[in-house]
C-alpha cells in the first residue's frame, strides 16, 4: 500500500534491505517470516510489541532516498512480499527511468513525493473506500475526539459544540463532544487541561438551568457529581441533542435497543451546515419523525419524508386554512397552524388520484387528492408543488393497495334501548360524518373533540377508537397478521400464558360478557397473541382489564390492534416488567401536581398517596378504579387526546378532593377518600344495566358518596388543566425517565448485592463497586461490540431475575480478570490463558457467559477462600482443557462437572452422579489405589520434613474439610500436560509478590514432589491396567472398574452405557490424553505399557526426565520415600537457575518424543490427585502463606475504577488532569 511520504530516520537498524537501486530500497523487518529468527529477531519483535509499531502488520516497506542524502522517505509498506514486490516493480518500470532525467536532487524528491501522493489520491478515487457523508472538518473533529478521550473507532461522534465548563468557580472554555455513548469535554488553556468523560448511561439528571450568574446553562448530574456547562452558541440545539442521546442510552438500559444508525436516511439537500455529521442529521430526522408519528398516531416505522407550508380547503366552513402538510412513505397529513382547527390523515393506501389543479391568482399551485371513499382534499399554496407531487406519486407507486379493511357498517349492537340521549348522540355523530367525512380521512376538528368529550355512542366506540388511536392503519396494513399470530401462539405455554390464565376471570368479572367461556376465550386469544408478538412485554397485569374493555366494543382482531397501539405507542413502556412507563408518568403526575395543585403537594408528598394510588389510574386508564360505564368515557377521550387527558383527570380528581385530603391523617385515609370519590363517578347517559363496582359492592359503611358525573368531570378537567400540552408532557417524561431508570438500576444493584452478600465475604460496599464495574464492562461491550459471536445487547435481559440481567463473555471477563483478580499474572499471554481457564470454570451452564453471581463466587474464593479452596480452584482450573476450541464438548462437560461445588446455591455437598457419567467415569477405576496409598506417602514425606507448620495445616485441613473430603476424591486427576500447565500458572502467579524468590523455590520443590508422586502412581496404574486387560471385553472392564471402588457411582456407569457404543467412542475422546482414546489406541497403549513395565528404568527416564539421578531406577512404591527427598533437591537446584525462564524446565518434557510417538500425549498414565497436590503445597511454608493470605479487594477495585475511567488505556492517566464521573 502506498503511503504519504514520511521521513524515517534509521534505515537499517531493525530492517534488512532486500533489494536496492539508486533511489529506492525494499526492506524487510528483522525477524519476520523465517521461523526462528534468532535473537535479533526476537528483540525486534519485542520492540514492535512494546512500541506497538505498525511494522507488526506491515513487515515490508519501500524507502526512497536520493543518492547523496541521508534522509529516507517511506513511500510504501506491505503485509506480504507479493504486495511489496508489485509496488517495487511498478517503481522500477515507471519511475526509475524518469528520475534519471532530473538534475537536481530536490526536484527528484518533490517529484517522487508528488507522484506517490497522486497515486494515493487516484487509488482513493477509484476505490472510494466508503461512502462517507461527513465533511472533512467533521472528520478532523472525530480524530481529535478519539485522540483526546481515547475512544475507539466504534464510538461515533455526533456533534461538538464550543462552550464553557465550570470547574469550581472558574469557567473553562473548550469543546463539548457529544457521541453516542459519551458526553466529553476538553479544554486546554494556559497550560491547564480539563477533561471530562461521562457515559450517558450514568446520567441521572439533565437540566437546562438558568441562574442569575448563568442565564443559559446545562446541568448534567450523575450519581456522584454535577457538571455545569454554559455559554453555548445555541443552547437549545445542544440541549435537544443531549436529551436525545441520553434518551437513547436510557432505552438501552431499559430494553436493550442498541443504537443503530439509520442507513436508509433520505438524502437531504446538501445545505446542511459544514460541521454537522451524518449522524446528527440522522438523529434530527429521527426526532422529527417521532414527533410526526406521535402527532398523527402513525405506525412505529413510519418515516417523515418532508413537510411544507400550505393551505387546505375545508368544505365544512368553506375556508382555506393555513397549515403544514407532512409527507411520509405511507401517509399525507395535515395540521392547521392553529392547532385545534383541523387535522387530516390520508393514508396513501386510500388515495386514488393526486393531481395538480390549475393555478390561479386566488388559489396558487393547488393539488387535489382523492380517496377511495370519494372524498377530495384540496391543498394550495404549495411552494414546491412539482417536487411534492412527484414525491407523493413515487410513494404511491410503492404502496401496494390492499383493499382489506372493509368494516361493515355498524349497528350490530341491539338498539332496543332507544334511550333518547343515546339516540341523540348517534344522531350528532351521523351529522358529523356527513359534514366532516367518514373513516380515516375525516376532517378532525374542534367539533370532533367536543363530540368525543360528550361520550361516543355505544355502537360507534369500536370504530372510532380504531380511528383515533391509529390502530386502523396497522390493522389495514397487516391483513391476516392476527389470525396467524393466534394460530402460532396456540398451545404455547410459558410464563406469560400462565399469568394470563390466572387473570382471565379477574379482568372484568362484573360484565356478563366475561362470565361465559366465549368472552374469556376471546380475551385469552388476544392477550396470548400479544404476548407472542411482543415477548419484551409479554403479559402484564392491567393489560387484561384494558383488553377486556376493548373486546366489548371491538372485534377480536380490532381489539388486538388497539392493544398494540396502547402498548407500543400510546402508553409507551407501561406494561414491561418494571412498568417503567407508568412509573415515569406517575413522576410526571407528581410534577404536574406540584404545579397545578400546589396547596396539596406537600401533604401528598407526606402521605405518599400519589405514588401508591395513581399507579392503577395510569395502568388501567381508570378502568380499575371507576365504575365501568364511566371509565369507558375516559377511554373515549384517551383515544382521541392521548395521555394528556389522563393527567388532566388525575389532577382534577386531586383538586376535587383537596379539603378531604388536607384533612387526612395518614395515607390510608387519603386513599380511602380518593377511592370513594372514584367509586361514585357515574355516567348518567349510560344505557348499560348498572354494574356494581367493587368498592361500592363491598363498602356499605357510612353514607354514600355524592355522585360525580363523568362528563362534568371531563369538562372541568379541560377547563382547569386543559392547558397542559402534549409536548410539555413529553419533555417531563424524558426527565422522569432518567430518574426512574436510574432508580431501577440502583434497586437492581441493591437487590443483587443483598442476595449475594451472604454467599461471600465481601462487604456490601465492595460488592456494589464490583457490580458497577461488572455492569460497565457489559455496557462497554454493548457500545463497541464484543468479540463478535453473541451480541452483547442480547445478553442483557431486564425481564430476567436481577442476578441474571447482566452477563459478560470471555473477552470482557479478561479485562476484569487482569484488573481485579489476585492471581492474574502480569505476563500477558499467560494471563489470557488463565483468564480463559477461570472463565470456563465459572461458566456453569456452558453458555460462554457468566453472570454476576458466578463472577463473585470466583473472585470470592480467590480473595477470601481458605487455602484448600484456593488450591482446589487452581487445580480445577487446570482440569478444564485450556485451549479447547477444538473440543468444546469436553470443556462443556468439564464445566458441567464442576458446576456443583463452586455455587453455593446448587451445592448440596455431592456432585450429582449423572454429570460424572458424562465426562469422567473413565477416571474412576484409578481412584481407589491412589487414595489408599497417598496418605501413607504423605505421612512419610511429612515425617522427614519435620516442620510443625505443615502438621498444623494438615490438621486444620482435616478438620475443616472432612465433609468435603468425599467430593474432593471425586475431582478428576491431573494428567501430565495439565500438570505442566498448572506449574506454569504457579510460576506466573508470583511475579510481583514480595516473596517472589522464596515462592519460586517453594514451587520448584512442590512441583518436583508432585512429579515424583505421579511417577509412583503410574506403577499402580499399570498393574491396574493389566488387570483390566485380562478381561476380554473392554466394555465390561470399564463397568467393573467403578463397581470395585465401593460403588461410588454406579448410576453414572449405567448412564454412559445406555448411551450406546457408537456414542461412546466419541464421548471418550474429549477427555484428553488422560484417557485412552478409542479401542484400537487403547490396545496399543497397553502393549506399550507392558513394555514399560518390564523395564522400569525406561519409564523413569522418559517421563520424568528431570530426575537424572540413579535413584529413580530402582524405584518401586516402597522406595518412594527416598526418591522424594532426593528428587526434590535435585530439581530445586535445576529450577533455581532456570526459574526466570519459567517454561523451559517443564516444557522440555512436552517436546520430547515419547512412547508410541503420539505427540499430544506425554505420559498417559502419569497423574496426580488433588490430595497429592494439596499435601505437597502444604509442605512449603512460603506457598502456604501465599495462599492463606486473604486478599484485600478494595484497593483493586479503586485501581480498576481509575483504569476504567480513563476510558481506554491509550492514555496514561497521570498525564492529564482528569475529572471524571460515573
Amino acid at each position, binding site marked *: 500500500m502506498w503511503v504519504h511520504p514520511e521521513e524515517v530516520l534509521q534505515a537499517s537498524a531493525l530492517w534488512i534491505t532486500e533489494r536496492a537501486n539508486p533511489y529506492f530500497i525494499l526492506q524487510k523487518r528483522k525477524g519476520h517470516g523465517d521461523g526462528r529468527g534468532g535473537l535479533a529477531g526476537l528483540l525486534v519483535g519485542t520492540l514492535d510489541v512494546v512500541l506497538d509499531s505498525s511494522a507488526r502488520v506491515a513487515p515490508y516497506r519501500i524507502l526512497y532516498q536520493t543518492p547523496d542524502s541521508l534522509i529516507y522517505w517511506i513511500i510504501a509498506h506491505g503485509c506480504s512480499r507479493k504486495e511489496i514486490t508489485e509496488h517495487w516493480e511498478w517503481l522500477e518500470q515507471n519511475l526509475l527511468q524518469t528520475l534519471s532525467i532530473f538534475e537536481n536532487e530536490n526536484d527528484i524528491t518533490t517529484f517522487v513525493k508528488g507522484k506517490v501522493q497522486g497515486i494515493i489520491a487516484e487509488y482513493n478515487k477509484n476505490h472510494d473506500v466508503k461512502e462517507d457523508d461527513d465533511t472533512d472538518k467533521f472528520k478532523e473533529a472525530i480524530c481529535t475526539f478519539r485522540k483526546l478521550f481515547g475512544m475507539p473507532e466504534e464510538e461515533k461522534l455526533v456533534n461538538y459544540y464550543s462552550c464553557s465548563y465550570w470547574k469550581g468557580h472558574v469557567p473553562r472554555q473548550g469543546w463539548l463532544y457529544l457521541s453516542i455513548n459519551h458526553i466529553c469535554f476538553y479544554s486546554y488553556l494556559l497550560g491547564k487541561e480539563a477533561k471530562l468523560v461521562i457515559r450517558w448511561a450514568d446520567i441521572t439528571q439533565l437540566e437546562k438551568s438558568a441562574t442569575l450568574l448563568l442565564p443559559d446553562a446545562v446541568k448534567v448530574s450523575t450519581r456522584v457529581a454535577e457538571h455545569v456547562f454554559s455559554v453555548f452558541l445555541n443552547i437549545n440545539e445542544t440541549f435537544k441533542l443531549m436529551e436525545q442521546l441520553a434518551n437513547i442510552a436510557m432505552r438501552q438500559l431499559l430494553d436493550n435497543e442498541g443504537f443503530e444508525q439509520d442507513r436508509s436516511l433520505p438524502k437531504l439537500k446538501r445545505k446542511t451546515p459544514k460541521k454537522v455529521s451524518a449522524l446528527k442529521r440522522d438523529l434530527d430526522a429521527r426526532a422529527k419523525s417521532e414527533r410526526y408519528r406521535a402527532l398523527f398516531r402513525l405506525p412505529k416505522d413510519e418515516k417523515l419524508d418532508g413537510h411544507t407550508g400550505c393551505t387546505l380547503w375545508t368544505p365544512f366552513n368553506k375556508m382555506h386554512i393555513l397549515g403544514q402538510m407532512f409527507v411520509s412513505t405511507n401517509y399525507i397529513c395535515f395540521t392547521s397552524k392553529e392547532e385545534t382547527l383541523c387535522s387530516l390523515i390520508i393514508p396513501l393506501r386510500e388515495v386514488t388520484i393526486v393531481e395538480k389543479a390549475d393555478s390561479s391568482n386566488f388559489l396558487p399551485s393547488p393539488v387535489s387528492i382523492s380517496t377511495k371513499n370519494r372524498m377530495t382534499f384540496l391543498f394550495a399554496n404549495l411552494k414546491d408543488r412539482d417536487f411534492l407531487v412527484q414525491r407523493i406519486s413515487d410513494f404511491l407507486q410503492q404502496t401496494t393497495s390492499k383493499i382489506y379493511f372493509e368494516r361493515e357498517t355498524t349497528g350490530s349492537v341491539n338498539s332496543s334501548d332507544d334511550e333518547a340521549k343515546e339516540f341523540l348522540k348517534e344522531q350528532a355523530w351521523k351529522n358529523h360524518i356527513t359534514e366532516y367525512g367518514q373513516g380515516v380521512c375525516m376532517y378532525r376538528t374542534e367539533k370532533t373533540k367536543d363530540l368525543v368529550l360528550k361520550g361516543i355512542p355505544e355502537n360507534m366506540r369500536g370504530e372510532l377508537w380504531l380511528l383515533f388511536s391509529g390502530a386502523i392503519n396497522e390493522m389495514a396494513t397487516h391483513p391476516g397478521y392476527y389470525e396467524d399470530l393466534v394460530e402460532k401462539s396456540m398451545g404455547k405455554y410459558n410464563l406469560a400464558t400462565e*399469568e394470563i390464565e*390466572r*387473570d382471565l*376471570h*379477574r*379482568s*372484568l*368479572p*362484573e360484565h356478563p360478557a366475561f362470565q361465559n367461556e366465549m368472552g374469556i376465550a376471546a380475551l385469552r386469544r388476544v392477550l396470548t397473541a400479544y404476548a407472542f408478538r411482543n415477548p419484551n412485554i409479554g403479559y402484564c*397485569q*392491567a393489560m*387484561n*382489564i384494558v383488553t377486556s374493555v376493548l373486546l366489548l366494543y371491538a372485534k377480536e382482531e380490532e381489539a388486538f390492534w388497539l392493544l398494540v397501539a396502547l402498548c407500543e405507542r400510546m402508553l409507551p413502556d407501561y406494561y414491561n416488567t418494571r412498568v417503567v412507563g407508568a412509573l415515569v408518568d406517575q413522576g410526571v403526575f407528581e410534577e404536574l401536581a406540584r404545579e397545578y395543585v400546589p396547596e396539596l403537594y406537600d401533604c401528598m408528598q407526606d402521605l405518599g398517596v400519589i405514588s*401508591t*394510588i395513581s*399507579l*392503577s389510574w395510569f*395502568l*388501567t386508564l381508570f378502568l*380499575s378504579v371507576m365504575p365501568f360505564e364511566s371509565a369507558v368515557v375516559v377511554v373515549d377521550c384517551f383515544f382521541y387526546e392521548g395521555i394528556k387527558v389522563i393527567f388532566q383527570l388525575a389532577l382534577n380528581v386531586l383538586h376535587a378532593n383537596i379539603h378531604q385530603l388536607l384533612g387526612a391523617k*395518614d395515607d*390510608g*385515609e387519603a*386513599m*380511602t377518600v380518593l*377511592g370513594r370519590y372514584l367509586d361514585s363517578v357515574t355516567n348518567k347517559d349510560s344505557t348499560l344495566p348498572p354494574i356494581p363496582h*367493587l368498592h361500592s*359492592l*363491598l*363498602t*356499605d359503611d357510612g353514607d354514600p358518596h355524592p355522585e360525580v358525573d363523568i362528563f362534568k368531570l371531563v369538562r372541568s378537567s379541560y377547563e382547569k388543566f386543559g392547558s397542559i400540552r402534549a409536548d410539555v408532557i413529553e419533555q417531563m417524561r424524558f426527565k422522569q425517565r432518567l430518574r426512574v431508570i436510574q432508580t431501577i438500576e440502583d434497586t437492581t444493584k441493591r437487590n443483587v448485592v443483598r442476595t449475594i452478600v451472604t454467599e461471600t465475604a465481601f462487604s456490601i460496599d465492595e460488592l456494589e463497586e464490583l457490580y458497577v464495574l461488572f455492569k460497565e464492562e457489559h455496557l462497554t461491550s454493548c457500545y463497541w461490540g464484543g468479540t463478535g459471536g453473541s451480541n452483547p445487547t442480547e445478553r442483557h435481559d431486564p425481564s430476567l431475575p436481577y442476578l441474571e440481567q447482566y452477563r459478560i463473555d470471555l473477552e470482557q471477563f479478561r479485562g476484569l480478570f487482569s484488573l481485579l483478580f489476585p492471581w492474574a499474572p502480569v505476563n500477558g499471554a499467560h494471563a489470557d490463558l488463565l483468564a480463559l481457564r477461570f472463565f470456563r470454570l465459572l461458566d456453569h451452564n456452558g453458555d460462554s457467559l457468566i453472570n454476576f453471581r458466578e463472577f463473585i463466587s470466583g473472585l470470592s474464593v480467590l480473595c477470601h477462600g481458605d487455602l484448600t479452596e484456593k488450591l482446589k480452584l487452581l487445580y480445577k482450573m487446570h482440569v478444564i482443557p485450556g485451549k479447547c476450541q477444538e473440543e468444546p464438548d469436553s470443556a462443556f462437560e468439564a464445566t458441567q462437572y464442576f458446576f456443583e461445588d463452586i455455587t453455593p446455591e446448587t451445592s448440596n455437598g455431592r456432585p450429582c452422579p449423572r454429570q460424572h457419567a458424562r465426562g469422567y467415569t473413565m477416571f474412576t477405576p484409578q481412584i481407589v489405589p491412589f487414595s489408599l496409598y497417598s496418605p501413607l506417602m504423605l505421612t512419610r514425606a511429612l515425617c522427614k520434613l519435620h516442620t510443625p507448620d505443615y502438621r498444623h495445616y494438615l490438621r486444620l485441613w482435616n478438620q475443616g474439610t472432612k465433609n468435603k473430603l468425599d467430593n474432593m476424591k471425586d475431582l478428576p486427576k491431573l494428567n501430565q500436560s495439565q500438570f505442566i500447565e498448572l506449574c506454569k500458572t504457579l510460576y506466573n502467579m508470583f511475579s510481583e509478590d514480595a516473596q517472589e524468590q522464596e515462592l519460586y523455590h517453594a514451587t520448584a520443590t512442590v512441583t518436583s514432589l508432585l512429579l515424583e508422586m505421579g511417577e509412583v502412581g503410574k506403577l499402580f496404574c499399570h498393574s491396574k491396567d493389566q488387570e483390566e486387560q485380562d478381561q476380554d471385553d473392554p466394555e465390561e472392564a470399564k463397568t467393573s472398574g467403578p463397581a470395585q471402588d465401593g460403588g461410588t457411582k454406579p448410576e453414572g456407569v449405567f448412564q454412559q452405557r445406555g448411551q450406546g457404543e457408537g456414542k461412546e467412542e466419541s464421548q471418550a475422546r474429549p477427555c484428553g490424553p488422560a484417557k485412552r482414546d478409542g479401542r484400537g489406541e487403547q490396545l496399543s497403549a497397553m502393549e506399550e505399557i507392558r513394555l514399560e513395565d518390564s523395564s522400569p528404568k525406561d519409564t523413569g527416564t522418559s517421563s520424568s526426565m528431570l530426575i537424572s539421578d540413579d535413584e529413580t531406577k530402582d524405584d518401586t512404591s516402597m522406595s518412594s520415600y527416598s526418591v522424594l527427598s532426593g528428587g526434590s533437591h535435585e530439581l530445586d537446584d535445576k529450577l533455581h537457575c532456570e526459574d526466570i525462564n519459567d517454561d523451559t524446565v517443564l516444557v522440555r518434557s512436552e517436546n520430547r518424543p515419547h512412547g508410541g510417538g503420539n505427540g499430544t500425549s506425554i505420559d498417559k498414565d502419569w497423574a496426580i490427585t488433588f490430595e497429592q497436590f494439596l499435601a505437597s503445597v502444604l509442605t512449603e511454608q512460603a506457598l502456604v502463606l501465599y495462599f492463606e493470605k486473604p486478599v484485600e479487594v478494595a484497593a483493586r477495585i479503586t485501581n480498576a475504577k481509575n483504569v476504567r475511567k480513563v476510558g481506554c488505556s491509550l492514555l496514561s492517566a497521570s498525564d492529564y488532569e482528569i475529572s471524571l464521573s460515573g
Partner: protein
Amino acid sequence: MTSRKKVLLKVIILGDSGVGKTSLMNQYVNRKFSNQYKATIGADFLTKEVMVDDRLVTMQVTTKRAQAWCQSKNNIPYFETSAKEAINVEQAFQTIARNALKQETEVELYNEFPEPIKLDRNDRAKTSAEACTC
C-alpha cells in the same frame, strides 16, 4: 392495661398473584366475599377498627402484589383460612394484631424485617380454588 388509646397497625398482605389476598382482606374488613374480584393493580386498601385485648386498634389492611415472598422463619403462626367461608379469617388477623402489639413493647427500635406472620400458601390457594368453583 397500660393504655387505652388508639393504636394503628398496618398489615400488608403479600403473595403470588391470584391467591386471594383481596378476598381475604375483604372478608376480614367487610365480612363479604365476592367471586368477581378484579386483579388488583398496585395496592388496595381498607381500614377496620377492632378491639384486641381491650385496646382499640385500627387495622389498615393493604393488599400488595409482591414479586417474591422473602424469607420465612420458624414459629410462624399458621392458619388454614377460607375467605369464602370466612373460616379462621378473624382469628388470623387477631393473632396478627396481638403479635404486633406484643412486638411493639418488645422492640422499640426499627427493625427492617419484623417477624412476618405467615399465612401459609396452601390456605390461600384453597381460598382461591374455592372462589373459582362457585
